């Protein structure tokens, strides 16, 4: 089987201390991602779950090449990602796009929705005219449940859920193969979060997307993950098919996380 994404022994450390107000000299480097290895097949949803500071967001940023890894290997469709530079990297990047947590912070408030959604086209398909770009933006907005009427408006005119749809439209306009979604519903209300989760499932089927889904919430992850990795202190403590992790966890940390979830009691349990 060929994987969409393969990560081998990926590692990233940050130098800590040494700041202006720090009382410690430059000390031991802080290892944020500590030798992570996994593989994601096409069409799968690979979820990385962990608490704040576990390294899950750093891992996502490494895979998107937003920050540079210390060492390790990333294969995207069997092609090595880490050595890529310049045009080759840019070409690869259009295959992998990101959806962010906070739909209020991730959209430029001074740009119109049309410009926001079409911006990736301006970079990756500069031959298109402005009219063509906006036509593509309108088309993708319709796929995420909005429409052309959104194009000339500004982000503040939209609710949180609608803004997250705009962010998803921006990520999809280049028709990427891999979507990295970093806590895509945790800033949203329950009823709206469920809409966005449903939308992500529909889009996955429609466009054949592979998801790398990052979340602190096991209940959210349980809704769409095919595989779950539980991360702590830069390492995967356990990973496997979602059903096994949720129902037969082997690591005590996974069990602790599951036990801490405040569950809504079912009628029978009351």
């Amino acid at each position, binding site marked *: 089987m060929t994987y969409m994404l393969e990560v081998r022994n990926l590692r990233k450390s940050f130098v800590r201390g040494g700041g202006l107000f720090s009382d410690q000299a430059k000390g031991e480097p802080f290892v944020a991602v500590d030798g992570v290895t996994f593989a994601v097949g096409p069409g799968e949803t690979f979820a990385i779950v962990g608490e704040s500071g576990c390294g899950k967001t750093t891992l996502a940023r490494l895979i998107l090449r937003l920050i540079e890894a210390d060492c390790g290997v990333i294969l995207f469709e069997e092609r090595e990602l880490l050595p890529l530079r310049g045009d080759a990297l840019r070409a690869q990047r259009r295959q992998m796009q990101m959806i962010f947590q906070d739909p209020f912070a991730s959209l430029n408030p001074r740009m119109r929705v049309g410009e926001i959604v079409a911006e990736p086209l301006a970079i990756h398909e500069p031959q298109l005219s402005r009219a063509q770009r906006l036509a593509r933006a309108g088309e993708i907005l319709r796929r995420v449940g909005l429409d052309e009427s959104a194009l000339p408006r500004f982000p503040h005119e939209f609710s949180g859920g609608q803004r997250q749809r705009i962010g998803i439209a921006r990520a999809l306009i280049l028709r990427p193969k891999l979507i990295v979604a970093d806590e895509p519903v945790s800033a949203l209300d329950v009823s709206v*979060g469920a809409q966005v989760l449903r939308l992500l499932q529909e889009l996955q089927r429609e466009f054949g997307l592979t998801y790398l889904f990052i979340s602190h919430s096991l209940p959210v992850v349980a*809704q769409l993950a095919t595989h779950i990795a539980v991360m702590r202190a830069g390492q995967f403590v356990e990973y496997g098919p979602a059903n096994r992790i949720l129902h037969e966890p082997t690591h005590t940390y996974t069990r602790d996380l599951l036990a801490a*979830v405040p569950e*809504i009691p079912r009628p029978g349990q009351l």
Partner: protein
Amino acid sequence: MDDLLWVRNVTVELPTAAGWVKPVNEVSLRISPGESLGLVGESGSGKTMLSLTLMGLLPLGARVKGEILLNASGVGEASSGVKTGPASQPGKDQNRSLQGLKPIERQGEMSELKLRPPKEEVEARNLVGQSEDEWRRVRGREIAMIFQEPMTSLNPVMRIGRQITEAILAHEPGLAGEALHRRLLTAMEHASLPEPEIRAQQFPHQLSGGLRQRAMIAMALAPRPKLLIADEPTTALDVTVQKQILDLLDHLRRELDLALLFITHDLGVVAKVADRIAVMYAGRIVEEGPVQKVLSSPRHPYTQGLLAASPTLERRKLAPIPGNVPRLTELPSGCAFAPRCSFRRAECEQVVPEFRQAEPDHAARCVLL
């Protein structure tokens, strides 16, 4: 009635560019000593505005109608506004209760205040229309509040111990020396802050999110309030830390006979901490009842929708509620949930449904009942 707090028909109006809006609309609630009431709602439901009303922290220009009776035990159903201080003459209230706006106007009533018995004498009093001076006696001392993000509520350049001490001194200015230090340590121990002597010397940034929330709890509980309002206190925390804080609040409630108004959007959290639930939507309470009854047989379509949309550890087809929470400037004339409701009838769009009892202790604002 054995009520610590009795919120009676409270409406809050705020001026906006589009006219007056009502983020809190005809809300009634009762909380007994030691009871935990979960207030559930999504953003814009008015739950935070309601809690700010209870703390006298509304933005400038807000208008409050209705009554908020503190120490309401002994106040009969029928007698409205008995012995509740000077501010409770109904009718006049509406114009006068501009919170924090013009305390000067109320000078005439201040002298009456001095004649009042000291705090220990339990007397029902109406918080609506109080002067800022009167609020200062309630805020923190009788009703305290903790917030979602402790880092923004703590002073970043003041040591934890001093911040908690400040809270104690605000209400007991006489304390000093060894007695004050003992009160500080007691407060920190109540909040289960480990190594209190060391933590007291630290700054907020040196504490983890969970410890910061414990510091906030220590500060809130130091003046020994009777009611703690917790506004999404665990939303910013990791689940394992959230569990610890929820356990702590539950323990404190029992140990100190503390009443808890727990505000959250998370039905799982509310199931863990609350005895009763009030569900808020677009400024109104739409359903209220014991936690088990509301979660196992929700009677309002909005509560049913929230349950169906909440992810659990079981994979299931989530049923989102279509549409968005309405803007307060664009509320329909009838039931505010009607445009998103799949059981909508013609009558829903005409008038706001009254509360109807499903059982003696379980009611909902829905025509289906």
